[in-house]
């Protein structure tokens, strides 16, 4: 896994920066324009979740190469309050921050793989992977 940068998420403007970096990395890796938009949108949802629930956190971007596939990894981590009921948090329409409750389930649909680890009082880590459609 090759580290391509981390973006501190603490304010509104960081969301824009995070999704722009994600889009640039996806484009540089040869993802299609549509896939780059899906990745940027997923990053936006995760960064938004960090702001809404933890206030501060990080988005890490990396390239991976596995089984002769190239992919992008997005890790969103925070040391916020954590999620008590992960199952509920992944339900559409569930929100404790006044949002639509589309953030996490929405982000999951935009990518190929989605993992979430959360511990109450410790924080939350969400990992997304999206594979490039075909070898360049």
């Amino acid at each position, binding site marked *: 896994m090759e580290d391509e940068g981390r973006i501190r998420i603490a304010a*509104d403007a960081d969301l824009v920066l995070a999704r722009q970096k994600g889009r640039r990395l996806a484009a540089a890796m040869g993802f299609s*324009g549509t896939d780059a*938009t899906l990745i*940027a*949108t997923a990053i*936006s949802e995760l960064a*938004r979740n960090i702001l809404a629930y933890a206030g501060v956190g990080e988005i890490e971007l990396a390239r991976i190469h596995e089984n002769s596939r190239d992919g992008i990894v997005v890790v969103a981590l925070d040391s916020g309050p954590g999620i008590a009921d992960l199952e509920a948090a992944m339900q559409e329409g569930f929100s404790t921050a006044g949002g639509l409750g589309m953030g996490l389930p929405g982000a999951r*649909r935009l990518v190929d793989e989605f993992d979430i680890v959360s511990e109450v009082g410790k924080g939350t880590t969400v990992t997304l992977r999206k594979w490039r459609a075909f070898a360049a």
Partner: protein
Amino acid sequence: MPASILKQGAYLIASIQSALTDAEVIQLQDDLVEQVGKFRSRGVILDVSGLDVIDSFGSRTLHSIAVTTKLRGADSVIVGIRPDVAFAIVQLGLGLEGVHTALDLEEGLAFLNRMGEGGRRGG
């Protein structure tokens, strides 16, 4: 501010030139709602072709802009949603129900003109 509002006859045309922060999106919504009253506008066109990402917050705000301007007496139409952005909105599981959309500025103007005529005919 990467967004501008232009008065064009009875319509307001708001254009977003580049990515907006959430605060700037909210500001645009407030400005639009205020200017609809100030200029007694009958219609609002919101050109979002400068937005490369519309996430759940973006969709919700577009919907909110459409509803609030409607409550102020102006029809609104969103134009310029990019194809990849449209795809992402669908994948996210969001729609823009209750929001009028058109391909571009020209189609948006035609739409508002039709709405105006229909309104007059309907009395």
